[in-house]
């Protein structure tokens, strides 16, 4: 006998979690003897910007290519919008846009022809295509370059063209694989703003990068991976809360350079402060790592005044994702 009370449809809808845009379960991929993905799992919620952060060679692009059905994998499961993804999942592919790391356009075609061609692979209706191409060109700011061939475009403009070709069909899920590599700061900002705009228009974004500042800037949630494994997952704040360091204070103290006794005494006094984890002195500058706290800077400056140490430039930094990566793996993200 079934004792479970039937749930009204409306209530079921309210309680049901929406199907994630991407669900990857324990993905394993080998390149020969090298383990590229080590039981990697991820769940990308609809409407979010999901950052995949890791050093070069950590498995980000491999993960993306497996998700897109381009690469075979040894085990695991991949579902996009709740459906299994494969090379012939054309309905799913229609809803996906890809902006690959390398520029993927035809050098013999103009900007407009390139965008139009890639649009035609998704949209059969010619009239609708014309509108979409115009929108994409305007979106990436290439209106003045419609008739240019790619080889006449600068690196930043090429990246924008690469993006336009990937988003012209207005996909619901867009993969950006390191889209700002070798791009000037101005174009980089334009690209990041564009990605946020696409997200605001309803697209789910998967953004891979080894530039932590970009990931911090635009991503709702960040998955840090290394050696094909997940190191951490969460929002920017959640990740930073995972490590002890809440603040890093740098203080110029040139008087400590030649006076070993005072320097040792000062460092000991600073280490005695309850929130201080570590103190280092290098090139006239004290670097003090503290736990999170509202009065760290005041406490540190007071300790220095008591030690009679004159101070120069003072700065305070919140921890970066690099600090998180360093704390979790023991290596620098930039290495």
């Amino acid at each position, binding site marked *: 006998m079934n004792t479970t009370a039937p749930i009204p449809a409306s209530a079921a809808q309210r309680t049901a979690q929406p199907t994630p845009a991407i669900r990857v379960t324990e993905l394993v991929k080998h*390149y020969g003897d090298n383990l590229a993905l080590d039981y990697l799992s991820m769940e990308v919620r609809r409407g979010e910007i999901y950052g995949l952060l890791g050093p070069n060679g950590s498995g980000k692009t491999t993960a993306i*290519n497996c998700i*897109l*059905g*381009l*690469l*075979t994998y040894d085990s695991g499961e991949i579902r996009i919008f709740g459906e299994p993804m494969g*090379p*012939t999942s*054309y*309905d799913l*592919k*229609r809803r*996906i846009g*890809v902006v*690959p*790391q*390398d*520029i*993927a*356009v*035809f050098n*013999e*075609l103009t900007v407009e*022809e390139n965008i*139009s*061609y*890639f649009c*035609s*692979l*998704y949209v059969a209706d010619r009239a609708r295509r014309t509108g979409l191409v115009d929108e994409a060109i305007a979106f990436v700011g290439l209106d003045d370059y419609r008739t240019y061939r790619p080889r006449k475009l600068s690196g930043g403009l090429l990246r924008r063209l690469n993006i336009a*070709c*990937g988003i012209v069909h207005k996909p619901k899920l867009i993969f950006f694989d390191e889209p700002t590599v070798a791009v000037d700061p101005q174009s980089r900002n334009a690209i990041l703003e564009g990605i946020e705009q696409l997200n605001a228009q309803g697209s789910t974004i998967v953004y891979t990068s080894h530039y932590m500042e970009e990931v911090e800037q635009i991503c709702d949630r960040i998955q840090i991976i290394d050696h094909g494994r997940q190191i951490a997952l969460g929002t920017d704040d959640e990740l930073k809360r995972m490590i002890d360091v809440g603040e890093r204070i740098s203080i110029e103290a040139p008087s400590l350079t030649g006076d070993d006794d005072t320097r040792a005494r000062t460092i000991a006094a600073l280490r005695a402060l309850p929130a201080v984890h570590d103190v280092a002195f290098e090139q006239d500058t004290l670097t003090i790592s503290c736990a999170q706290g509202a009065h760290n800077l005041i406490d540190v400056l007071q300790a220095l005044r008591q030690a009679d140490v004159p101070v120069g430039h003072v700065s305070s930094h919140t921890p970066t994702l690099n600090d998180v990566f360093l704390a979790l793996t023991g290596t620098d993200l930039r290495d």
Partner: protein
Amino acid sequence: MWSTFLTTLRINLREKSSLFWLFCFPILLSTMFLSMFGNLGATYAITTMRFAVVADAAYCKAEGAQQLIAAMQRTPVTPQECGTAPAAMDVDAGDTDLRDLLDVTAVDTVGDASDLINDDHDVRGFLTVDGDGMVHMTISRATVSNANDAMGSPGLPISLSILNGAIGMFNRQTLTVAQILGADPTVLHDADFTAAVQETPDFTHQVRLTNFKPDESARYYYALLAMTALMAMSFAVTTVCATQANLSALGMRRSMAPLTRLRQLMGGFLASWLCTFCSLLVALLYIHFVCRISFGGRWAATMLAIVVASFSSNALGTLLGSLPKLTAGTKIGLTTAISCVLSLLSGLYGSGAMALSDWIQRNAPIVAMINPTQQVTNLFYDILYYDSYTPFFRTVGILLTMAVLALALATVFLRRQRYAHL
């Protein structure tokens, strides 16, 4: 598929290196052939040779010899010493007009003749007649040297050969008659014998085995068309590579599109086929109208030939483009290498290569049959030389079979291709 077709067409026609190799290169090579083989036809045409004739007593007495020499001149020269000239002998030389063979100058002695050929290199040699009425030919050193340089003196070797043949035949006939008369002079009263003597011996007769008059240089142009067709494999190779995710970011992007790979490949194939057809058509028109190489006036068959040749080359290019574990650069390199090597086997690179091609045809027909450049060459050859279309359609069948096999193999390689590495 239609947009892929148009895009591939645009790309192919804007790619400068393809345009050069597939449109300009065949024209350049044809022009080169034209300058190389332009004199080849003249090699087989009679050229008028200046010769001295020693008009001594023996010559004046030998009426037959005078008749022979007169038959080989447009305006027979009669030495004063010999009085009235006999009528020119009727020499049957088929289509060849022997009256253009000699321009004769009469001299008195052999010494005068020797001096003349030494002083004037335009005088190729001299003719003498001995006491038995036999004609002898002597040619100058300069003529020997010139005869060995067919390109420098086209027509001279064949003209010398004809003169030598005519003199030889005359001498044999004269000797035979003299011997018979020596043995039995009464045969002169035999009407049949005298009729037989007067009759020009007809040991050979001309038979036309081919549909058109053979043109030695045509084969080189046909081989050039075959090479052009094979070089055009690069269109299909590039098209296929641009759909493969492991070969380029472009391939990766296209692999992610919801358009099936088959439709993308079909669009690309049709565009490449059209480009190859145009490339062959341009080369063919240039070869016909500028280089004056005949295709037998069979234009429908000629068009069918380039349709089949371009289809086959693109099918082979599709197979080459689909080969796994090779980079796009390697595949393009292979295209060039294969085209060049197979063109060697089909005789493109000169008489040595042509001899090799003929040797293969005779001794290893299977190799010739599976060589697509040889088969494309044969397409045009069949059109020109055979009355029947049967050999042409046999060659069409061989090429289409190759194409179908290549496409089937390419399908096996490309079908649902996924990659372990990108």
